């Protein structure tokens, strides 16, 4: 391969930096002309967000060349099969719905959703069209010990310890893939503001030149934000959550079951994440500081945690929801929080890093003149993706009928809803989310995801009255029945999450 980009310097060593380094180094490991270095400050603490991944992380880790057993053992990781939402629909009585990682049955043949309406009083949508939610509720693993590494019975991603994950990625990238690791502070950026960056100056390693600079410096956004002064488009008027209060909670019993999905429980002014790792749970309240005080938020979080709340420390993390106007400027591309950050509902942070790193790697300019074109395309693609995430997250709030605070009422007022989401909502009064709502080739959220949320929150009074074309009535019934049968079979055959993780610790996973 011949690229005009020979030297790549990644600035920042959090999960964004090391994921990007690992991916690039793995992709170019046979191309000695491409050199990858990562400079990170020895003084910067990682934020450690993103304890949840999408299933895409499996192929990303495989591509980087990390052994799944190694990953699970070293990163305190567990299996995530989706998100399980509690009390989002109303605050008066318990209610929940699932957004599993498995598409509805028959998704490849036809849209089964309209046929579910007739049964909607007896079975929740996600339960009717997928066996996975029942496995999640039973705390079962997505595979067996006989299932090869990275393969699955039910699709899955991970819950992981972000700090340990960064360490594993770093070890692998440096030792196996030959990434040059420089521990130093970047003190200056050299180059005109309207020109490509020539080099960065470090405190002890002097000047480091590169052809492409990847800004993974997090909130600081050293290159993209500070050097190029790329405008930050704040989104707080749409997604209000600007603060997270996080805690690590030990299991009351070390053999306690490990939840197989991220639990997202709506609160008076935000929601609480609950992520089960092997040795502890990560729990946090994401809320809008203009709607609730830190003290009241902490009180709600303590109430959620229960007795153990007395033993834990709370860490406050500010969130500035939004993203840059551009992500790729001249020879500088921002990945991770340097590019943008939105609250962790639906855990989109790491997948955005994966997608950005893959884009950079696969489209690495081979001709100096291509840099501008690639940058333009990258910016278009990722703008679209950020907007889609915004709309999809907002959907969870807009469809809620909670009326217990201004927070929820404000979330439904028209001026806090983007035009694109408002348009979709208008269409979805009479049409189910379909492929017409997700026109791009590589959409973050397929139509099925929109269906899971829309129908999970039972936003369907008009939809239900639409005439159903009966073409697939019989096949739909068969699929519903098969799903019920499959649930029984899987329940009999799948181990608990904890049990499987123990087996993996003892025996490792098979390669075939």
């Amino acid at each position: 391969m011949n690229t005009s980009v020979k030297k790549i310097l990644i600035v920042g060593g959090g999960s964004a930096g090391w994921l990007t380094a690992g991916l690039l180094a793995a992709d170019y490991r046979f191309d000695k002309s491409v050199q990858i270095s990562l400079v990170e400050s020895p003084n910067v603490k990682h934020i450690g967000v993103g304890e949840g991944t999408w299933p895409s992380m499996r192929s990303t880790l495989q591509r980087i060349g990390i052994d799944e057993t190694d990953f699970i053992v070293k990163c305190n990781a567990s299996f995530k099969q989706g998100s399980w939402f509690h009390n989002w629909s109303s605050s008066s009585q318990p209610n929940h719905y699932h957004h599993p990682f498995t598409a509805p049955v028959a998704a490849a043949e036809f849209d089964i959703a309209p046929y579910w309406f007739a049964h909607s009083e007896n079975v929740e949508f996600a339960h009717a069209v997928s066996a996975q939610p029942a496995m999640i509720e039973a705390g079962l693993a997505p595979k067996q010990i006989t299932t090869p590494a990275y393969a699955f019975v039910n699709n899955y991603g991970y819950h992981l310890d972000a700090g340990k994950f960064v360490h594993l990625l770093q070890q692998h990238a440096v030792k196996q893939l030959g990434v040059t690791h420089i521990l130093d502070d970047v003190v200056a950026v050299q180059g005109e503001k309207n020109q490509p960056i020539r080099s960065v100056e470090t405190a002890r390693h002097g000047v480091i030149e590169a052809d492409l600079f990847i800004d993974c410096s997090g909130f600081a956004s050293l290159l993209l934000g500070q050097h190029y002064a790329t405008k930050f488009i704040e989104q707080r008027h749409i997604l209000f959550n600007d603060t997270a209060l996080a805690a690590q909670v030990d299991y009351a019993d070390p053999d306690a079951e490990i939840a197989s999905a991220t639990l997202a429980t709506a609160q008076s002014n935000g929601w609480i994440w609950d992520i089960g790792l092997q040795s502890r749970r990560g729990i946090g309240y994401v809320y809008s500081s203009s709607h609730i005080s830190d003290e009241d938020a902490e009180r709600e979080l303590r109430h959620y945690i229960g007795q153990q709340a007395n033993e834990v420390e709370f860490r406050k993390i500010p969130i500035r929801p939004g993203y840059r106007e551009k992500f790729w400027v001249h020879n500088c591309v921002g990945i991770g929080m340097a590019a943008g950050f939105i609250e962790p509902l639906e855990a989109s942070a790491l997948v955005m890093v994966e997608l950005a790193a893959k884009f950079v790697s696969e489209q690495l300019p081979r001709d100096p003149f291509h840099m501008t074109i690639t940058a333009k395309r990258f910016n278009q693609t990722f703008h679209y993706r950020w907007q889609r995430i915004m709309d999809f997250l907002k959907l969870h709030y807009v469809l809620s009928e909670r009326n217990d605070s201004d927070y929820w009422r404000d979330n439904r007022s028209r001026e806090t809803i983007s035009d694109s989401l408002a348009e979709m909502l208008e269409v979805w009064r009479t049409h189910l989310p379909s492929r017409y709502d997700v026109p791009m080739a590589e959409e973050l959220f397929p139509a099925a995801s929109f269906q899971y949320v829309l129908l999970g929150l039972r936003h369907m009074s008009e939809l239900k009255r639409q005439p159903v074309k009966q073409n697939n009535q019989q096949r739909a019934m068969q699929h519903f029945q098969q799903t019920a049968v499959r649930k029984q079979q899987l329940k009999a055959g799948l181990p608990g999450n904890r049990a499987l993780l123990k087996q993996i610790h003892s025996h490792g996973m098979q390669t075939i």
Partner: protein
Amino acid sequence: MATIERLNNVSHKDLKVNTQRSAQLGDNVMFSLSFPSEFRSAQAYYPIVFHKDADTGQLYPVVLFGFQQQENLFLTDDKWDAGYIPLNVARQPFSIGLQDQQRVVNIDMDSPRIGNEGEPLFLEFGGHAPYLEKVSGMLETLHHGVEENKGFVDCLLEFKLVESFTLDVTLNDGSQHQLLGFYTINEDTLNGLADAQWATLRTKGYVGPIYMMLASQAKFAELVSRKNKLLNLS
């Protein structure tokens, strides 16, 4: 369930073991563990493939007797219709236990083989009867075989020689059956191995067992024909 006891010539003095072969005695098994040094005898009668242990996921070689759970097509009314019975079957109801790092013989007291009929285990004054001597030998061989399996499987996995396979069988009555959950050796990968890898296989003594596994695939036809014969009977 099994009640495992360490065999001794006091409490088990008068025990006898029924060595006949039948479903009632627990011989109705679909497959059983094997090991490279047994392949030569086993491949003359049975397909030898790999299977995964349900508790550990580890691969180990097995000899196949049938196409579904509890089906042993070699069991006839009064005997096991093959010239060789794999050691892991023949050893029943005995197994190896560990006591103070020494290997000892254990017996499953719940086995239907145990009773007043069959082969005595001990001589009048407590010495081992010939049958027990034979069983001890089998257990010893089996123990070394299981040890041998780990290196064999690890090496084959390292060389990416193991692949899963699905066997589709159509019987004479038109019924279709599928054999899933077993693994075999990928011949193309084997043929494409580098010289150094071949040298490793040769040094470790794996070349013979590999080809015996491949040759044993011919015995699938034997299984199918036995299954078809059962159709004619019913």
